[in-house]
């Protein structure tokens, strides 16, 4: 955890900003584990954490919420942010997250994590601040939708549990675009609110505006969860159609 909290000089301010980002990223990782615990997921793997947070981050403009910026790059196994892994390890050291299993083969490590009681206690304190509560709500919503899709028919059998959504993340437009271009290690344009993902989301959002005359547009206005579900349904259909 960062140390300084007081700011005065510009360099202190910059440090303070960095600390703030670090805290916020930690918070968001905790919210994911908190939401997973509410859904009785036994653990989230290293891969799963990356994919869930990636979806929360790239879809965040939907709720007009600003999450701490995470730099995801395009890797063969899906989007990856090295910050997430480092912060996760720090949270383990703080006893907010615990390691359920840990194995290493050929220099690669595999780990599964879950939130601890002190970790949950910590989240409860954090969300007494409304700004943080909104983030938890958002991540909770995304996690719920992920939960609804994680056991769908036709998802990869080489992964287990929530890791299976990797197949859906592969279909996510911003990622898929980089994949098509073979843009290895390139940053995924998350900050660009006009990226392919947001274009698709905006298309789904405006379904009411495309109704033929005579329809009551208000009745067809979609809520957040429905738009998310539509988005996931798109990813799922794309996956199935790819065979």
């Amino acid at each position, binding site marked *: 955890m960062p140390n300084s*909290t007081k700011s005065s000089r510009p360099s202190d301010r910059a440090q303070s900003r960095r600390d*703030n980002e670090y805290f916020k990223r930690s918070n968001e990782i905790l919210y994911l584990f908190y939401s997973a615990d509410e859904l009785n997921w036994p653990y989230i793997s290293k891969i799963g954490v990356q994919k869930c947070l990636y979806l929360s981050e790239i879809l965040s403009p939907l709720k007009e919420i600003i999450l701490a910026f995470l730099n995801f790059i395009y890797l063969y196994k899906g989007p990856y942010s090295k910050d997430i892994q480092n912060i996760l390890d720090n949270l383990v050291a*703080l*006893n907010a997250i615990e390691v359920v299993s840990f194995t290493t083969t050929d220099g690669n490590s595999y780990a599964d994590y879950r939130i601890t009681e*002190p970790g949950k206690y910590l989240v409860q304190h954090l969300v007494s*601040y409304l700004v943080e509560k909104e983030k938890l709500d958002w991540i909770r919503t995304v996690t719920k939708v992920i939960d609804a899709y994680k056991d769908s028919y036709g998802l990869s059998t080489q992964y287990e549990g929530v890791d299976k959504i990797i197949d859906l993340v592969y279909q996510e437009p911003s990622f898929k675009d980089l994949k098509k271009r073979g843009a290895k290690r390139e940053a995924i344009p998350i900050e660009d609110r006009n990226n392919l993902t947001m274009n698709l989301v905006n298309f789904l959002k405006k379904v009411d505006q495309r109704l033929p005359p005579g329809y009551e547009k208000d009745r067809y206005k979609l809520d957040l969860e429905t738009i998310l579900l539509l988005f996931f349904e798109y990813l799922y259909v794309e996956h199935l159609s790819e065979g």
Partner: protein
Amino acid sequence: MGVEYIKLPIIRKIEVQNYGLFRKNLQYKFQEGLNLFIGGNRQGKTTTMYIILYGLIGLHDKSKDFFSSRVKQENLSKDTHPMVKLNFQIGKAKLEIERDLFDPRINYFSVNGRSYKRADNPDIEEVYEKEIERLAGISDLADYNFLLEKLLIREEEGNYLLWNTDDQMRVLRLLFSYGKFDEEFIRLRENYRKIDSKVRGQQDIQAQFKKRRRAVEREKFESIKGLTKIDPAELKKQMSSLEKETANLTATYEKIVTNIRDIGNAIKTLNQDVNGLSNEVEELDSETIRMENLLFKSVYTDPKVQLANHKLKNYQICIFCNRKIPKDKAQDIVSNIEERKRCPVCDSVISQASSDDITEKERASLIEVLLKKRATTDEKKSQLSAKQKELDTLKKQLEGLWIQENKMKEDLRKKSLETDDIKLQLSTVEMGAIEETSVFDRRIEYLQSQIDEYQKDIDKDKIEREAARKTLEQKNREFTKRLEEIREGLVEIFKDYTASFLGECELAAVPRKTDISMIYFNVFAPKFAGSTRYYKNQASNSEATFLEYAFRMSLCQLFKQITGGESLLAIETSEGLFDIGSVPVLAEAISKYYDVSYLLIISNLGRSDFLPMLVVKSKDEIRSRVLNYFDIGRLSAAQEKDREKFDAEFNKILTAK
């Protein structure tokens, strides 16, 4: 005054990791004397040279995907950072640098054991550049790039330093002048160019006036012949319409000027508002962040979360292995954490629950204040964005007005010239007594006065230009003298390298006119069989290639003699150009060089007899000096098939004595 020469880099070691162009990681230690890179085509030999250059200088003018584009899609290694690590020396300083190959940046570098990491130095590229400039005694890292590209690295189809006047002059200046001579020289040359182009610009305008004067003179001549008549009534009509147009233009112009002033003032006020508001927002933001950090820190350092420390302190239980540890050991660790506020593992400063921390009640009120602060910030932000929009609109308006103002000024100037011209004609006509032709004389007089005005400026600038030229010439003479001083030594070395191939061959100092008129710079050109070869096509391909190697080796050797400075010269040989009889001569000349200095030869075994001849003079075991690309590179199907043949050739090199 101590003489400060430039210091060149000597590469000691290269490591290339996770780069898909190679099957394996590349690792090679350079040694004094001969170093050999051998391999087939497309196995990455030349790319290794680029990697060395990149390691030292960065991408420079190469595209961002320079290295990734050389790797086939299926060979792009997965999930790993391809990178190059170089160990090198500049003078006595030992340096190490690691750069990412796909993401052009420095990961870290060190100078004499002092290391700089990207994480601690966001501007690490700049720090590196300054360090290199300081250690090498150069004014810009680009100088290094220039020397590496033009002198120290010679690709197979590379450039000819011997016949490129500009490149050779610059290499000579960088190597053999001192005290940042090259920087000063370039500055003086640019200064001369600037004044020269100013003079030329003025001469162009003056030429326009001269042209017009000639036209009027022609008109006068026609008039004398009675072909042109001046009608005062027509002139007056023209004059009054011109005056009207000018008045209209002036009115519009003044309106624009007033508008510009008003908008300028409005922008000034708005700018102040925007600045004030941005400061407020920034203050509010950083205050919010400070308070948020206080809140987060208080949550994260909650005693219930600080289990590890708690367990150690009260139960002496290690959270890693869940075993009891001796009390004094536990106390040591705890005091490290609590008193020194240091991490027991990595000793960096860590955050701890302290007396600054707030109670739960305080936390609640902190949150309340925070939320209020955020609301105020949001309000100020929306005010700021509105003001900024307004400001942008005004700025756009102002820009439009400036364009209009400039155009008006230009139009007014034209009208004023036309008016002057007509006035002159009228006044002459109205004087009556004067002959019609004097109208033309007055116009000619007026144009001449303009021509004279310009001439005055031109004369003044010409004096300045002459002074600049003299200073530049003086500097050039200084360097020509310097070249004369080194010529004898250089020729002696050069003769030694070339004698067995070309007989008596020397380097003649040839004056070359450059783009700066009247100034000649001396460069070297080879002279053999009785004639100086001013151009590359005055020598055969093998002669030109041989001379180029000899010239570069001579320059490096002389540089070492004069300054004591070493460098690594890398030559990708084109031995295929040479006929059977001259291959031993080529091998012998190159052997002479590696006998005294660092040399890297890159060869694709184009001729099987060349390398065994080349290595024979190497004093010790050749195996440790060879990097075999068949071992690390990716082989084509044909190369796989010919592997045995290659191995046999390779063995001939290893066993040559």
